[in-house]
């Protein structure tokens, strides 16, 4: 991996200390995404650690339970505020922390300032690599035709769009084929997909046809929730398309079983 510039806002003598916010889904369902993220960050010169953590609180926040969301926010801030940066392999969780934490402390000036200081350090993984660390290419190989889905929170709350495409273009052997409507929601929507499963299914159905029509053999995106949704639909429809988190492909870990595929042996 090559960086065009040294990381900026940490004292120049030591590498930036990054707290990896692994996200609930990566923690439980697909730890390899966490290791891929840690590898990418370490290769870009960061010192990575994973403090004890649970959830960013988004499910509570989006279900209207602000009080519980606030508890999650307090815990997360306490666990991560000693780091130079807080990085998550998810636009959705990073978006929650960066765009919404301060409003949870409305009317509490001290807590609000603390939350604002915290959210200034929060980044989504790939945009952190490109925009903050100045990474321009990765040393990885992936032999396949890949299509990239823009997950909504990353795209709209954090402006993650060109960064993953730029790094994917540097992966040896990889061809990027854009699908139609790559920036249209996949229908996951957190609890939405279980509250309104039939509507969610109609939305992910359209997404699955766009993915298949792109001619790609691999789908990548930056959010495990969306990936599980799309993988689950593609598999239910019997489509032979591998689904992977963008961090795995960028970290050269694209040879492990894809999402929802059994380990061999």
């Amino acid at each position: 991996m090559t960086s065009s510039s040294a990381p900026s806002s940490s004292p120049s003598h030591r590498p930036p200390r990054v707290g990896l916010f692994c996200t609930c889904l990566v923690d439980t369902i697909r730890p390899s995404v966490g290791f891929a993220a840690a590898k990418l960050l370490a290769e870009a010169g960061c010192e990575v650690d994973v403090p004890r953590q649970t959830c960013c609180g988004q499910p509570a926040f989006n279900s209207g339970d602000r009080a519980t969301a606030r508890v999650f926010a307090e815990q997360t801030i306490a666990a991560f505020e000693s780091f130079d940066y807080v990085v998550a392999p998810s636009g959705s969780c990073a978006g929650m922390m960066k765009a919404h934490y301060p409003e949870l402390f409305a009317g509490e000036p001290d807590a609000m300032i603390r939350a604002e200081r915290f959210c200034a350090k929060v980044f989504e993984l790939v945009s952190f690599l490109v925009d903050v660390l100045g990474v321009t290419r990765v040393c990885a190989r992936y032999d396949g035709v890949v299509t990239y889905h823009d997950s909504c929170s990353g795209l709209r709350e954090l402006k993650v769009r060109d960064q993953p495409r730029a790094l994917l273009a540097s992966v040896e052997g990889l061809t990027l084929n854009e699908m139609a409507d790559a920036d249209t929601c996949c229908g996951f929507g957190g609890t939405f997909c279980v509250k309104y499963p039939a509507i969610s299914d109609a939305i992910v159905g359209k997404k699955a046809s766009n993915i298949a029509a792109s001619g790609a053999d691999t789908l990548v995106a930056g959010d495990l929730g969306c990936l599980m949704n799309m993988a689950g639909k593609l598999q239910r429809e019997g489509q032979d398309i591998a689904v992977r988190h963008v961090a795995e492909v960028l970290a050269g870990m694209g040879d492990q079983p894809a999402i929802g595929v059994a380990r061999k042996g």
Partner: protein
Amino acid sequence: MTVAITSPHLKENAAEALKDAQLQEALAKVGPGFIGKRRAAADKMPEFEALRDSARDIKTHTLAHLDLYLEQFEEKVRAAGGHVHFAVDAADARAIITDICKRLGARTVTKGKSMISEEIGLNDHLEAQGILPVETDLGEYLIQIRHETPSHIIAPAIHLNKRQVEADFRRVHTDLPADRDLTEPTALLAEARGELRQKFLMADVGITGANFLIAETGTSVLVTNEGNGDLTQTLPKAHIVLASLEKLVPTLEDATQLLRVLARSATGQDMSVYTSFSTGPRRADDPDGPGEYHVVLLDNGRSAMLQGDLREMLRCIRCGACMNHCPVYHAIGGHAYGWVYPGPMGAVLTPSLIGVEKGANLPNASTFCGRCEEVCPVRIPLPKLMRHWREKEFERHLTPAPQRYGLKVWGFLATRGWLYRPATRLAMKALALLGGTRGRFSSLPLAGGWTRYRDFPAPEGDTFQAQWRARKASNRSTAA
């Protein structure tokens, strides 16, 4: 037609909509049609984003001083010889309008497209009073002869296809030759024009909505693509403008600023085909125009919104861009939302107008993808306002029980890391064992909503945090 509220049954409505092949065929065209056109219109105009800021600011300013502008507007309308009527609620507005119609002995009323008319259920009410309302916007005319409600705020008949329209025309226009050729859309349009022309001449009163009401001049502004609004407002004895309070803007200049983002956001046109400004009744030397000019200003809950957290919603200029870009709207169409206003703007507005008890499904049925906010010309933070309703629902214990308890149990565990981390380790290891050979599940207890339509991936094994700590410990011991 009066809209029966079926919002509490959004799920059932959606299930019907998803099965309806004709509707799905019509909906498939919504996204590609509107999205590309708006994009092209916005790209052509370098100052488009700045214009959106200014549109937002104009509306925010107006709402902050709405009382002043309402006063000024009333004064100017009066000075031009017109009348302003304030209607507290739907019943009030209906009564004001029927009184005017009755005083003039009206038998037929032509109508321009007006969502407020739908909101107050005006047509049914007029019919019950023996007054015949005739919708003159082609889309509104179609749904009127089908006894339906609009499924979109700017394209009310977007759920219909050409074959359905042809069948309806043959059913309703029985005085025309049965063997006429209606295969071309232009033939359908010509036939509707012919039918409506007679009605325009018969009408005693014309009722239109308004896109803007200009305080400095007392003018109502109406945009249409068919020119039906002009005929509706100039030919009859009286023109009644039916509009809600938030349509006010301070000046003519402000109205033109907003017009610059309205059509571009709605249909991708630079301007709608007709933009008509009406100020007062016909003056002595005017060649034509109505003898009376009335503005009925509907509150119906809006002044309460003005005081509260939903104030930003009153910036809405009803362009329809939010629904044109909404994946949920694309999937289920407008009728499934179960009342007058569909899509993201409906999801915010409906609970304020019919109550959160009945309307709570709407703000919940959103993926929060944020595309509505991204395109809204007046930058209304629609997801934030939908979340506001979810909070109200949660506070008032209206959230459905399984969801509430699910959330409680998860919240209890996950805010106690010492309990949560070992529990998830155990659960993931068990699931990994169960699903490991296939790599995924096609059914899972407690996850039926998911696995009914999709497979669920088996976890890899131990949690990331546990593995990370184990690796760190072993690195430390090898280093030592």
